[in-house]
C-alpha cells in the first residue's frame, strides 16, 4: 500500500512539473536567442545537456499519504540527428521523505523524445515543432511510483519573439513566448489489482490510467535583446544576460474522475546565459489547492554541447558535422 501512497505523491510531482520532464532546446531564430526553459519543453532542437535539474518541494498530505519532502535530480541529453530533428534521453532520481514514514528513493522511468522543427520565420522570430515523447514503462523504481507501462505523448511546440512589434511599443520587443501541448496516452488503460480477502473472496480492483493534456507556456523578457536591439539602458554584466521568465506548467486529465480538473504550477524565475552554459532558478507555485499549497524551487545547470565541442557533439549520421547552433 505504501507504494500507492508514493504514487499519489508523485502525482503531485507530475502536476508540478506538468507539461514538463527535463526541459531542453536553446536556440536562435533571427536575432532572437531563446534559452532552454526549466519546466516546459521548448521548440528547438539542439545538442545540449541539462545536468542537473533539481526540484525541491514539500507535498501536502492527502487521504492516500502523509506530507513529504520531495527532491528530484534529473538530467537530459539532447542530440540533433539533422538540422531540424532532435532526440533526447532523460532520467530522474527521486527522493521522498514522508512525515511520518521512511524515506524512499529511486529512478523514475527513462524518457525518450523525438522532435522535428517543421516551420520557422526568422523575421518574425517564430517557429513550430512537433514531437513525441515516450515514458518507458518498467525502467524506473516501483517504490517511488514509476509506472510499469509505457506512456506515449504526441506534442506540439511553438516559439514566438515579439521583436516585430511596432516601435511605439518597443519595450515589449524583448518579450518572447514559448508553448508546449501534449496528450499523455498510457499504453495500459487500467491497472488491475487482484487480492484475496479474509473470507477467501477474490477482489478485482480496476484503476483507470487516464489520458491527460500536458500544456504550458513560458513568457520571457530577454535583457540582452533589450540592450542589443531595442535600447541600450546601460545594464552591466552579468545582468545584461538575464532573462526573467515565468513558466506555466499545467495538466488536465481528459477522462476519469478528475477529467477537466486542471492542476499545475506557475514558476517565476530567472535564467542567465553564457557562452557554454546557462543557469536558471525558479519558484514552483501551485496554481490551486488541488495541486498543493507549498512553494518549491527548481534550479538547473544547462550545457550547450554544440558550443563546447562542436566537432564532437554536432556530428550527425546523414548531415555530417552541423557545427554550432546558428541563427535560423
Amino acid at each position, binding site marked *: 500500500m505504501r507504494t500507492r501512497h508514493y504514487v499519489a505523491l508523485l502525482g503531485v510531482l507530475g502536476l508540478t512539473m506538468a507539461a514538463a520532464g527535463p526541459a531542453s532546446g536553446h536556440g*536562435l531564430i*533571427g*536575432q532572437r*536567442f531563446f534559452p532552454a526553459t526549466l519546466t516546459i519543453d521548448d521548440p528547438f532542437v539542439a545538442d545540449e545537456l541539462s545536468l542537473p535539474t533539481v526540484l525541491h518541494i514539500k507535498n501536502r498530505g492527502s487521504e492516500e499519504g502523509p506530507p513529504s519532502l520531495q527532491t528530484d535530480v534529473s538530467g537530459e541529453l539532447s542530440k540533433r540527428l539533422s538540422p531540424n530533428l532532435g532526440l533526447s534521453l532523460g532520467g530522474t532520481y527521486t527522493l521522498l521523505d514522508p512525515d511520518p514514514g521512511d524515506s524512499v528513493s529511486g529512478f523514475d522511468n527513462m524518457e525518450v523524445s523525438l522532435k522535428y522543427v517543421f516551420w520557422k520565420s526568422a523575421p518574425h522570430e517564430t517557429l513550430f515543432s512537433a514531437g513525441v515523447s515516450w515514458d518507458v514503462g518498467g525502467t524506473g523504481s516501483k517504490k517511488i511510483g514509476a509506472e510499469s507501462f509505457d506512456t506515449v505523448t504526441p506534442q506540439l511546440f511553438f516559439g514566438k519573439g515579439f521583436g516585430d512589434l511596432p*516601435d511605439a511599443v*518597443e519595450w515589449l520587443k524583448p518579450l518572447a513566448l514559448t508553448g508546449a501541448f501534449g496528450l499523455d496516452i498510457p499504453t495500459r488503460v487500467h491497472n488491475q489489482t487482484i487480492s484475496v480477502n479474509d473470507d477467501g473472496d477474490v477482489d478485482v480492483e480496476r484503476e483507470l490510467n487516464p489520458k491527460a493534456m500536458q500544456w504550458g507556456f513560458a513568457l520571457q523578457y530577454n535583457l*540582452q535583446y533589450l*540592450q*542589443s*536591439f*531595442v*535600447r*541600450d539602458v546601460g545594464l552591466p554584466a552579468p545582468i545584461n544576460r538575464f532573462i526573467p521568465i515565468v513558466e506555466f506548467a499545467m495538466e488536465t486529465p481528459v477522462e476519469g474522475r478528475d477529467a477537466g480538473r486542471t492542476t499545475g504550477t506557475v514558476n517565476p524565475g530567472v535564467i542567465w546565459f*553564457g*557562452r*557554454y*552554459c546557462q*543557469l536558471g532558478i525558479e519558484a514552483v507555485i501551485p496554481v490551486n489547492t488541488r495541486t498543493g499549497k507549498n512553494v518549491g524551487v527548481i534550479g538547473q*545547470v544547462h*550545457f*550547450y554541447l554544440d*558550443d*563546447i565541442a*562542436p566537432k564532437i557533439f554536432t556530428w550527425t549520421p546523414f548531415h555530417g558535422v552541423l*557545427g*554550432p547552433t*546558428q*541563427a535560423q
Partner: protein
Amino acid sequence: MRTLYAATVLLATAAPAWGHAFPDHSEPRVGHTVDASPPAVRIWFDGAIEPVFSTLRVEDADKRQVDRKDPRVSPSDDTLLEVGLPPLAPGRYRVFWSVVARDGHRTEGSFGFRIK
C-alpha cells in the same frame, strides 16, 4: 566527480568570450538620439569576429543605404565592427549587422538611432 563537475561549470562560466557574438555596446548607442551626425557607426562585440564574414550597413527611414560602404573590423580591435558615415540629416536611421565569431557562430541583428 564533484570537483570535475565544479571545474566544468567554472570553465563554462568564466570563458573570456561568448559562443554567439552579441553586441556589447555601440556608438551611437542602441535606441538613443544623438545631437549631430556621427562620423561612423561602431559596434563592439563581446568576442572576436571574423572580418571576411562580417557586414554592417546603415539605412535611413526610406530604407536607402546611407553609410560609406566601407565596413571593416578594426585592425587594432577584433571585437569592433565599424562603418563610416557621411554627414546625415536629422531623422531616424537603422543599423543592420551580421557577424561570425572566431569559433564559427553567426549572429545578426539590427537597431535604430536618431539624429536630432
